């Protein structure tokens, strides 16, 4: 097992290097240099100060040296300082917003699993039944619907027309004065719509995937054997077939991480949730390059980490993977 994990880690190393190279390239797409932005609007900045800034960002050195010193800083999570007026370290700004984004993504992933797997199983077991047909339509619409639009509609319906759910932020204004129970309920109410919507995008994909997995497994010889032994249909489906159909879902969960993280930009912006996605959006609008590059890197690194966890869990669940 340890050997397998070690092998995966070695395999990830070139990917990590590649990620840093792409981040670095994107950063240098800018016409002129990043320091122009801080200085060109400000008449008080002298040529000498510009030069100082250039030296600070080491823009006077050749590219490979710039890259090398950037990577060295990256290794100790030194992502530089924000261009915004607070000039805080980028790593701090990201770290304080990361927990809420990760919480939202984990919640929506759980929701996806809870809904998509039963749907997938049922529509496979009852192939071509009315249930299967209805879910197929749902899947098609689910693939095509712009989720930010669905968010708008639900905000109009539940937030504006019915006033059942709040449509912005994660806490009410009077949050600090609420007793513990009410405060918790307040947080839940704020999270319902964002979690529901960010799960929606993944639902269609996973239930379809689960369905085709299950259909494939049901046709295998060992399922026929199980039936021939006289086992009840229940045991055949939920014990023999389900376990094998569930395995590849682990990989799909790993693959869905970049989509979920990317989607957090849209949901956190629409619902004004102070997470990493919203920070990213605001930094893009404000041209705060160090923060943009920091989050771009962290987003890719999180994906890599998620894939590693998925690979290792797969190996834990399926001994065949470890050996080959």
């Amino acid at each position, binding site marked *: 097992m340890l050997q397998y994990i070690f092998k995966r880690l070695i395999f990830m190393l*070139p990917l990590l290097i590649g990620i840093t190279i792409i981040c670095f390239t994107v950063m240098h797409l800018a016409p002129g240099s990043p320091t122009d932005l801080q200085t060109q609007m400000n008449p008080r900045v002298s040529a000498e100060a510009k030069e100082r800034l250039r030296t600070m960002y080491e823009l006077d050195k050749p590219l490979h040296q710039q890259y090398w010193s950037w990577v060295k800083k990256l290794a100790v999570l030194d992502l530089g300082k924000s261009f915004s007026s607070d000039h805080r370290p980028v790593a701090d700004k990201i770290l304080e917003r990361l927990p809420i984004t990760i919480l939202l993504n984990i919640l929506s992933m759980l929701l996806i699993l809870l809904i998509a797997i039963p749907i997938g199983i049922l529509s496979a077991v009852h192939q071509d039944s009315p249930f299967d047909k209805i879910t197929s339509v749902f899947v098609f619409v689910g693939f095509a619907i*712009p989720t930010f639009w669905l968010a*708008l509609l639900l905000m109009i319906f539940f937030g504006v027309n019915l006033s059942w759910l709040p449509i912005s932020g994660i806490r009410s204004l009077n949050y600090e004065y609420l007793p513990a129970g009410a405060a918790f309920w307040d947080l839940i109410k704020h999270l319902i719509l964002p979690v529901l919507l960010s799960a929606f995008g993944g639902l269609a994909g996973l239930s379809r995937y689960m369905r085709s997995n299950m259909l494939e497994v049901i046709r295998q010889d060992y399922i026929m054997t199980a039936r021939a032994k006289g086992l009840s249909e229940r045991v055949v489906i939920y014990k023999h077939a389900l376990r094998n159909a569930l395995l590849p879902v682990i990989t799909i969960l790993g693959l869905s991480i970049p989509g979920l*993280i990317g989607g957090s930009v849209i949901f956190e912006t629409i619902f004004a949730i102070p997470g990493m996605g919203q920070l990213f959006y605001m930094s*893009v609008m404000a041209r705060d390059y160090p923060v943009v590059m920091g*989050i771009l890197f962290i987003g890719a690194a999180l994906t890599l980490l998620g894939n590693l966890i998925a690979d290792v869990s797969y190996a834990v669940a399926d001994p065949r993977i470890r050996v080959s």
Partner: protein
Amino acid sequence: MMTDFLERFFKNKMAVAGSIVVILLFAVSLLAPWIAPYDPSTIDLKHVLAPPSFGHPLGTDQLGRDVLSRMIWGARISLKVGFVATGIAMLIGTILGAASGYYGRWVDATIMRFVDIMLCFPTFFLILAVIAILEPSIWNIMIVIGLTGWMGITRLVRADFISLKERDFVSAARVIGASDFRIIFVHILPNAMASVLVATTLGIAGAILTESALSFLGIGVQPPIPSWGNILTAGKDNIDIAWWLSLYPGLAILITVLGYNLLGEGIRDSLDPRLR
């Protein structure tokens, strides 16, 4: 072969429905100047945020512009973005996939690692980061969506090339002295076009969704150019008073994307009924 394909295609109701949607969209985009009831950018401050009525079937926006006319012109934008962005992705994907599958060895290893690296980035993050640097404009968006969407096509084309290059007709071409270039583009590629066509149709749907999300966030097609995404931004800003700004453009995106998806899946099923 072709008649078999057409017969299967026209028997598939979903595929026919998808093609009707796509054909209608083309018609609307081409005829926009003639069928739009108003000029899409004429500001009419006397009729700001007017609800749907006989004069303005889908209402007006915050500057009194006719929403129906803006949506008709918006269809042009999404068509353009969908085709150009996916065209770029298809070009890159086909070339890299062909090289990877045909040459194998280190060429394959390098290109596949590059694909793995690109897939680590949340696509939306990468697009936003590049847009932050390059200024949002319709051309930049098309290019960036294309540059971040070629990985799936690369993998498909590579898989096709790996199996096709072992076939007899390729060996025969090699024996009569055809160059690599000729074998790749004249002999193998036409046989791999089927999966590229399907991926491209589905890719157009994806590109249209991405463009609308970007425009909705204000980093895509910039007003006053009308796009379905940026009409929805106005819908969000006036969420409690003007539902029509939120409802109709989203419906248009949904139907369009659904149309391309049905068309793509229809082509796939008709090309090879065994794949169903």
